[in-house]
């Protein structure tokens, strides 16, 4: 169980199966929300999560693979692609400096 303070997050990675579809969509939304906090948002295939990711967001159906791919990174599984509370929490933690674990 790792914990990170939202204010130290520098890179958020959204992962999906191919890294081209739903992750690109979510990354576009998050980039708009996190851009002014100088947080980089990337989208990648779930099997190729970059090592410098601070937080990984992916659907819970892919969380198992994300865990294998990024064993020490905080993984935030989501359930829906539109307005998932977990995503809102990540944004809030970055904006207000709260803690995230996963």
């Amino acid at each position: 169980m790792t914990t990170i303070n939202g204010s130290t997050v520098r890179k958020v990675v959204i992962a999906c199966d191919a890294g081209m579809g739903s992750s690109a969509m979510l990354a576009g939304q998050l980039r708009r929300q996190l851009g002014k906090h100088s947080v980089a948002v990337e989208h990648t295939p779930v099997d190729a999560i970059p090592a410098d990711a601070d937080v990984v967001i992916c659907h819970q159906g892919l969380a198992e693979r994300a865990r294998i791919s990024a064993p020490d990174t905080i993984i935030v599984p989501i359930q829906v692609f539109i307005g998932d509370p977990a995503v809102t929490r990540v944004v809030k933690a970055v904006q207000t400096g709260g803690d995230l674990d996963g």
Partner: protein
Amino acid sequence: MTTSNYTPTVQGTGVKATIQRIGGFLAGMVMPNIGAFIAWGLITALFIPTGWLPNEDFAALVGPMITLLLPVLIGYTGGRLVHGQRGAVVGAVATVGIVVGAEVPMFLGAMIIGPAAAYVVKRIDGLIQDRIRPGFEMLVDNFTAGIVGAGMALLGVWGIGPIVGRLTDIAGSGVDWLVSHHLLGLVSVIVEPAKVLFLNNAINHGVLSPLGVTEAAEAGKSILFMVETNPGPGLGLLLAYFFFGPRSLRPTAPAAMIIQFFGGIHEVYFPYVLMKPRLILAMIAGGAAGVSTFMITGAGLVATPSPGSVFAYFAVTPKGGWFGVVLGIVIAAAVTFAVAALLLGFGRKAGDEADDAAVTPEEQADREQAELAAAQRRSADNKNLAPASRGSGDDTPPQATAKES
């Protein structure tokens, strides 16, 4: 609620993750090259003798692209996945060995020999890396890659090419058998449940598309491109959610519809099925109805529509093929909507009817949480989730147009 509830724990034996990974590997060889597929599809749809603007000079591109360029790209990408740039180069060289002299586009062969050749180089690199004298690294690196590439290309010509050609024939005749016995709709019984488990790319790009390309190269179009990619079932499901789903989820449905149907990102609807697993029946019914409609009307596409958007469908619809394509999408959406609406009890199923009475948000949250918890127990999940956004009007859909072909 603390975020610690969100820690994913690996459950069971990870069979699902393993299948996803293998499938993801197959799809990972194809999907980065979709742009090239679309280029080929557009040139084919426009310039072949039966196309929109027949042109002999331009049509000369069609053959070499499908038999040489696209398999080599797949082999290259497969090699890169295994062993970086060196693997990619050797994978591409080896792939040429199987495409030369082959009768059919060697997609499946490229998916095998590209990674295999890269793996051989990877092993050899591992063996000799500590034994090279200083100053000879580049010489040894280049020649091991060259020798392995040449050897694998020869092996491809002699051994792997003919075997894969045979396998492609067998798979193709299996599909023909299903079509001639009007049973292709049964494939949806496998495809639709696998889709929502995030095997959508694996099935489409790993299995159906390579077979479809072979068929399209011969017949000018293939129905296999349409089995997994049909945007109709997802639209029908989301419509049913919009009218009859749990109230808290209804506001999210329109944005999801735009993303799914026009943007072609089918993943958006998967959670709606996973929340109420019985809805998989609606997806199967709609998928099968769509495939059967395509089959009866003789519909087909010239290339894979990726992403599975209605715009991508129209871009790769052959001349004169509109009727069956549109009808199949509409029927799939209608059937899915009807079955899903029925399964959702038209919004009046136990637990939903109280929505119409005055309830406090907390009560509603409790009820939905129970509903979600039940759904999660069914999917062997151990997280408790708050209901999804209650119409937090900030989920602006992304510009679908950015992803159109």
